[in-house]
């Protein structure tokens, strides 16, 4: 059967319609017409199949997964109230990397549960899997590559896939989520960057990246996604000898253990928290509110203990970055 309209675009417009009405319901301004609209949206056949609609979520998700090149993914999450929340995106699964990549977020409901900016757990082919989020990098990439809207989508995809399957794929890991949340809670961007640098040194095939590294990729970490430690390493990587490249993971592992110890100290630091306030370790506040960091960010008080642990962690982060980059420089000078 020939389809008259791009079914993904049609689905997107339906989801947008649902979200508009959901918003009205939450604001208690929905009227009779909205209810009728909502009913129509939920019963509207999709993919030219009268049996497929938003009311058959599993079949619809399977149809979306099979549509076009098989790279679309629809995700349905039950909301605490009102209609479910949705994510519709384009994904790519590189061979050899643990995480499939989210290349584009076509539609994301405002209340779709999102734990982290870098990783997202999505239900795909019968099980929950961690996906690496690159959809937020799409616009910076487009700007960086100087591609005007509506054109060069393939180039953006290619760039993101290369980035996701080489540098970011190694630098980011789902185990980093709590640490990143702690960094967001206490304002520690140095820690996040140091952690990503160490993971990159430990997980990446540095020799392969060195041989295929483009200037554009290095520049990306300076202009589009500013990440001084990664940029510093990548800029020097092509000039490094094989021996120097080989030594990097060993150094990174030592720094990783030091950084982990400093992070543990931060987690064990106490501050006044709870009702009535009493000394509570940071790890309890952090883990108990992983999904609510935005809510507690302003409430957490920086005690002396936290301030000391924070300083130590910043120092350890800076030391880790310096040690890695300095060792790279030393090795470059000895060549």
């Amino acid at each position, binding site marked *: 059967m020939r389809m008259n309209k791009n079914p993904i675009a049609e689905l997107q417009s339906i989801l947008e319609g649902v979200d508009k009405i959901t918003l009205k319901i939450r604001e208690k301004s929905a009227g009779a017409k909205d209810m009728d609209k909502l009913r129509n949206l939920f019963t509207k056949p999709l993919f030219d199949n009268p049996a497929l609609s938003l009311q058959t979520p599993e079949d619809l998700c399977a149809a979306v997964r099979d549509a076009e090149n098989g790279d679309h993914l629809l995700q349905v999450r039950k909301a605490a109230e009102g209609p479910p929340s949705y994510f519709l995106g384009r994904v790519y699964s590189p061979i050899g990397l643990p995480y499939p990549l989210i290349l584009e977020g076509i539609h994301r409901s405002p209340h779709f549960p999102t734990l982290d900016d870098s990783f997202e757990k999505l239900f795909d082919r019968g099980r929950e899997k961690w996906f690496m989020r690159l959809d937020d990098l799409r616009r910076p990439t487009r700007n960086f590559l100087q591609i005007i809207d509506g054109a060069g989508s393939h180039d953006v995809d*290619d760039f993101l*896939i290369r980035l996701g399957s080489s540098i970011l794929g190694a630098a980011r890991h789902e185990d980093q989520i709590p640490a990143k949340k702690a960094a967001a809670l206490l304002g520690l961007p140095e820690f996040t960057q140091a952690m990503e640098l160490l993971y990159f040194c430990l997980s990446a095939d540095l020799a392969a990246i060195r041989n295929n590294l483009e200037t554009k990729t290095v520049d990306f970490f300076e202009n589009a996604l500013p990440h001084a430690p990664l940029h510093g390493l990548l800029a020097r990587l092509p000039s490094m000898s094989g021996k120097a490249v080989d030594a990097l993971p060993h150094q990174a592992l030592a720094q990783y253990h030091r950084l982990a110890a400093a992070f543990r100290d931060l987690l064990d630091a106490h501050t006044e928290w*709870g009702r009535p306030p009493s000394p509570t370790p940071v790890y309890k506040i952090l883990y108990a509110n992983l999904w609510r960091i935005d809510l507690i960010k302003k409430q957490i008080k920086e005690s002396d203990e936290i301030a000391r642990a924070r300083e130590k962690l910043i120092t350890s982060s800076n030391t880790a970055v310096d040690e890695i980059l300095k060792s790279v420089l030393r090795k470059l000078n000895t060549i």
Partner: protein
Amino acid sequence: MLNRKAKKSSLEKLRHPVLYRPKTAWADAGPGDAFKSHPPWSDIIRAQRKFYQATHEAMSAAARASRDSAPDSLDFFTKPQIAPAFALAPSSFAAWACVGLSAYREFALSNDDLSLRQYIHKYLLNPVEYDRDSNADASAYSELAGMVADCVQKRAYLKVMTQSPGLESVETYRLFLASAQDRVIRNMRQIVEAAVFFADLLPGEELTGENTVIKSCLRIAHPISTPYLKRMHGATRQEIVNEAIACVKALAKALSPFLPKAAHADLNAVKQSPKLRAAAGSSPQAKASGGASAEPCGTNTGIIPLKSDVKTPMETFEGYKDSASADSPSLLHEITAMLERASEQKSIIDDPRGDILQRQLVDKAFMESPIQGAQVTGHSVRIRLGANRAERGDLFSRTLRPREAPEDLAELLPQAQSLADKLRKVLYPSIEMVPQALRFRGAGQIDPQRLPLASFSEAVFKRYEIAPMPDLRGRPTLLIACDASGSFDEKRMTMLKILAGAWLLSTTRTDIRLLAAIYHSGPIRRRVNAPLVQWLYHPQKTPAVTKVDAMKNLLSLPKKGVGKQSDALSIAFLLEEAKNFSKGENIYFTLISDCKWNKAVDGDHTGADEVAAVLKDLRKKEKDKMRATLVGLGVSGKTGLEGLFDDEFLPSEQELENPLEVSEKIAGRLAMQLRRRYRDLWREVESGQRR
């Protein structure tokens, strides 16, 4: 210097595999990796071993803490609770929450002296009697008091557990629950939980949204519960019980003004309650509105619903309700049902969706989790029932978990060992491709035997051919599949244990790959009962260090078979797994069954037809790479599958009375089968049939 010419080549490499070092390679696998899908299977097995070891230790510690002494037996009251690992939280955090929940369940089930209900049984029946000032509805008050008692009970357990060594993971489970709570508190159950479980963790009023009634209620509840909970810390058991009882009564009394009123009571009493008025009046919103009465919560009465889990979508359409026409209720019902359908999960073959599971875990906090024991994987199996017909069916698989029972192991080991000694010497033939040097035969005048002496390249003067030779060591895959449905009695199960144990022991330090499984049906998760394959041993799935260690899995086998087997589906799945695993080597398949074949898929075929079709199909594909033996337990007549197996052994009911003897006979028949196969292979090679 950067490689500026790399653009083209890197684009070409785009679809090539990425070389990546998994984290488990440099930070080792931890319990958090146990239920991930992406690490290599060897790392997952290592992680699962650590996870189940940690769970076992925590459950043992919980058993010790509850009984104030070492447990008599290492059999636990509950299985490891693994549902949190499949929710939406980060893996490591979720794994430790699983450990904590398992320990909590073990503690709760093996503890009775802390049960609050037995101390305040009378109070819980009619709390209004003990609270003369209250004008709340008696049944609602009773329900509230029960709810508070359950929460305080659980908190008391937590207090006792956190004072015991080795039970820190219980606190992780509490953190997991706190993190999974809704962002907005909507009912009394959530208020009680926030006050009793999470007062020291959650931000508090930020979770009440704009609802001043709930805000007031939380303000009242927090200061009441906190002193009692604090006093429980470091207290003796009896002191904890006393504090808990006092806490239940005080908290229920404080929250009772928010309950529906008794029929005789003044409906405005809630608004006139001094406590409520004081609390509501002190909130900024209330002050802004001149300290007037609290805003209603869902309804217009100022009453907080007891435990409507979450607002139904229909309840949220308040704006619509106001402007709706006369036919609105039916439309609202329709939309409510529609929205329910739009977010539900029907498929049972898939894992439960993370959001749904997380909600279940929050709603049933500290209760038995929907996924227990070992991870279950769903499979959709296709079986060919003739030339043009194929059917699909669903089944699940999981590995049996090892059971720590030294006495049982000491009993099984000698029995299996005696049999293993007999099997150990048996050679398992397979075909090995051996390179053999051929003499170069020149066609001209040069004497070929002299050419190598001139120190020419070996490559020129030596030719090789790859000759198939029977491999004395062999790398065959031995698949033992056993129908362990309801008809499988205790003696047969003992026989299976001895047989599987003997094969495990006899194949230690050899290249023989053993796969052993039972198939039947069983509970997969809550409300799901389906065909199930349980691996006794699978090299890539069983979390055991050695094959002797894997014998602990056999101890987990039930005493008798349970459920109803789906023969064709299970056999097709097991053979497919063996085929993938053997990578072209020989498969020795032994099916142990009572030969009462069940239908596994829809259609007009009988169970025997289905099994026959599966075997025929596989025999056609594998040709001479598969040897099949049927062990028909207690079968006196025909098996229904004559001619499809290379060998059939039908021990009588009388023979089955002695499990050791019959397992020895089965093993002997298998050995004969292998010997015969070896002889045949030699013959084929010698006669040049196999080139």
